[in-house]
């Protein structure tokens, strides 16, 4: 809805005014610690490594619960679910630590955009931490109670695994909302927290694309893992064979990849057009061709007799790796194209602010700035502002009134100076006074004299 509205606005007012509606934060005034392109290259590569293990964690968590449920009817599936749940806790640890690297890179490479998106979805963003902690602890519970919670306790055990899987399914949506929101500064104004941010751009097509990808990647890796001759299937997974497991997971890979032929184009057609470039379309076209190739290879793998199964694994894996690299590149190109104009505005604004700062400092140093220059030396009257937050002439603010001070120190201005340098706490009704030793004796004396003169000149009656 919002997006349609803003597209309408563009066509009426032109792109320039569209971008003008965006808030323009200032960038941080320190140089990048490494070359911008190296940084962005690192970001893309490290992100893909992170997302690979996220795929395995998410796909594993979902499959393990599904097989556990299937296992209630076909018991040998229960052992398969258990074995997969053991991989989840390992993959999740790797996924989290590998996430920190790309997080550092995106913080650096897209500082203002990323931080703005974080702040706009703040509560959801920070809730990622407790949510993932809970999911991790549930995943451990699921793994370590598998053989203990049987019989009557089995439904509870399934519920534990299911809860972990559901949290794992939800958290990527928060990440995607941020990664998506940072691309469309012109829409930031309309965002009122996480849920409204889901209306910006095309979060949901991206989300489903990601979920299916997780399933495809996990299934392919599992096809290899349990299909290896070295894997003791008879011992750990009685009721299965190497070839049967391979076929099972190849099928899952096939269906998930086939579903991408729906979700992929859906993602592309719902992509806001700002960032769509010819290169992006070329890459996406290439990816579609490769995906069809993968489907073809998988079909052959599933159909060949037992002794030949597994020969196509390496070609499939390599093609899939290529697809992932291309998608990572496409994603980066789209981001760059979306942000190019806004990034330029940020740079302009940051530069002109810096010029302003330096100019102001120079004028200050030369004593040219009328507002900041102090005419003449310090006087008691000017210095009294240090006291005025708490002391007033004939009124109790946060401390005794000046009239009271006068009655104590009428002929003893040095007494005020001594007290102000090292005040004690005398009265229970007030907070103790902070020390003003940093002003120095000379200035304190000016203030003390001013106070005494002001009170005596004010005509307020002094109670002795």
């Amino acid at each position, binding site marked *: 809805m919002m997006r349609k509205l803003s597209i309408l606005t563009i066509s009426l007012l032109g792109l320039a005014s569209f971008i*003008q509606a965006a808030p323009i934060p200032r960038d941080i005034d320190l140089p990048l610690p490494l070359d911008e392109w190296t940084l962005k290259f690192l970001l893309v590569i490290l992100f893909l490594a992170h997302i690979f293990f996220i795929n395995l964690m998410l796909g594993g968590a979902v499959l393990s619960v599904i097989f556990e449920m299937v296992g209630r009817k076909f018991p040998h599936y229960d052992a398969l679910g258990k074995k997969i749940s053991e991989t989840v806790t390992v993959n999740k640890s790797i996924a989290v630590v590998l996430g920190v690297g790309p997080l550092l890179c995106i913080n650096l490479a897209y500082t203002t955009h990323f931080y703005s998106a*974080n702040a706009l979805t703040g509560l959801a963003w920070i809730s990622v931490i407790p949510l993932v902690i809970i999911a991790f602890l549930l995943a451990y519970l699921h793994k370590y109670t598998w053989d203990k919670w049987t019989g009557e306790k089995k439904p509870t055990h399934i519920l534990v695994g299911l809860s972990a899987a559901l949290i794992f399914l939800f958290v990527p949506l928060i990440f995607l909302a941020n990664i998506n929101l940072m691309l469309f500064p012109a829409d930031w104004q309309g965002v009122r927290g996480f849920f409204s941010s889901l209306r910006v751009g095309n979060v949901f097509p991206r989300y489903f694309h990601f979920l299916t990808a997780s399933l495809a990647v996990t299934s392919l890796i599992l096809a290899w893992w349990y299909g290896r001759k070295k894997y003791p299937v008879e011992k750990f997974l009685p009721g299965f064979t190497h070839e049967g497991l391979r076929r099972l997971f190849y099928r899952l890979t096939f269906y998930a990849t086939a579903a991408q032929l729906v979700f992929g184009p859906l993602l592309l057609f719902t992509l806001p057009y700002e960032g769509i470039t010819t290169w992006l379309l070329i890459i996406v076209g290439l990816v579609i061709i490769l995906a069809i190739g993968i489907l073809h290879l998988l079909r052959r793998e599933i159909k060949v007799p037992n002794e030949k199964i597994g020969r196509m694994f390496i070609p499939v894996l390599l093609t899939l790796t290529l697809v992932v690299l291309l998608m990572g590149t496409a994603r980066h190109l789209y981001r760059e194209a979306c942000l190019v104009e806004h990034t330029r505005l940020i740079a302009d604004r940051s530069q002109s602010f810096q010029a302003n700062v330096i100019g102001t400092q120079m004028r200050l140093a030369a004593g040219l700035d009328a507002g900041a220059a102090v005419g003449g030396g310090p006087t008691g009257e000017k210095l009294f502002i240090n006291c005025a937050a708490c002391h007033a002439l004939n009124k109790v603010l946060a401390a005794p009134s000046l009239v009271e001070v006068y009655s104590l120190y009428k002929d003893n201005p040095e007494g005020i100076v001594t007290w102000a340098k090292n005040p004690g706490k005398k009265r229970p009704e007030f907070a103790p006074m902070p020390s003003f030793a940093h002003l120095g004796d000379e200035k304190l004396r000016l203030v003390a004299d001013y106070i005494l003169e002001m009170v005596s000149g004010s005509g307020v009656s002094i109670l002795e």
Partner: protein
Amino acid sequence: MFFIDFFGNRLLIAVIGSIHVFINHPLAVGAYPLVTLMEWWGYRTKNPDWDNLAHRITFFLFVVTTSVGALTGVGIWFSTALIAPFGIGSLLRVFFWAWFTEWIVFVSEVLLIMAYYLLWKKWGAGIHKKLHIGLGAVLSIFSWFTMVIIVAVLGFMMGSGTWPQDQSFLSAVFNPLYLPQLAFRTTYALITAGLCAWFLIFFFTKKGTEIRQKAVRFVARWILAWFVPFALASLWYWQRIPEDMKANLNVGLLTQRFMQWHETLAVLMLFALGAIIIVALIGAIRPRMIPGLVLIIPFALGLWLLGHFERVREFIRKPYVIADYMYSNGVKVSDLPVYQRDGILAHAAFVENRQITSENMLAAGRDVFLVTCSRCHTTAGLNSVRTKFATMYGNEPWDKNALLAFLATMHTSRTFMPPFPGNDKEAEALTTYLKNLQFDHEFIIDAQADWKISSPATGIAPR
């Protein structure tokens, strides 16, 4: 601008950071050397009880560090990005390579933790056992190494050394507070690891068994042994803390009417350390005398002290987030004159009111509050401005001129506060907002869901 009222932004970082430290120090940096030592001792004395105990403790460490520990570490990135984006963004630009290296060490550490725990039974005998003990040693070094790197950043926030002049990476890393703080944290982590292990021993061993007494004595000696270097490190650290920061501590606590509390606290801290030493002595000489669950007390005391060290460290670096470079509200020291002349709203990104008129006084004051005060203060919850001013001025309507005078001089009378980064009109608007806040108990529930923006007035020519 992200802001959580009542609970407070400051507390969010504090809670996540503290949980992380409570896990990292006693359960990772300090614990892996201790567990490896236990495993080695069991191997040398050919006593499988030691091995079992070490294995069980490691299971606990493994689960907690790879979930709560790792996630709260990431949580520090998330929360600081929300609350102090300018601070963390600047630190990242200075320390990127340090953090990047730490990240690689961190990845290795997690892989090693998993290998160490998951291979325990598989590598159970012969040459494999030796390898496994070696793995524990390497893990201990890696997990200490993450501390080695991160403390450089923490030290930098307190004392930036010569960095503001030369902006070089090396002078930022080897800031004056780095090495003493590292020594302090390392030794204290080793002590708290002992306290935690003590506590766990009672969960993982049976009453009256030989291994329980042996283990209690073993850990007691471990704690006592680390107390000497810890005392030396504390002294070193204390000497390196700049004088004005120490003054800050006193002034800060004094103005908040905590003077007596402060003294009691110092006594309590000494008492806690003393109690730990006494329990350790008894444990070393007569392990039988230590009753089981009582050992939660030294562990709790140890964590309480650790929490307090962090609190004090965070407090005394004020008013800066990066010493002498950036104030805790994200305002750079060098930008202050511009804000004080033009006003900070004119240069802010996410605000509605940029020029102050008699009509928008209140709304603009709220903007000023969010931009300049809300990093540390809430309206009505923890560390709220309402309570602060009520303590000073009581319940009578607050005096406008007194508030203005306070804003103008708060950084001199309260040296932990930054100077007000706005112009006179903004000070007036903020005063209006504060005076209104005294009686209208407005509560900024969800700042990120309730904001408006006008296009920035300065800096860019219209296109």
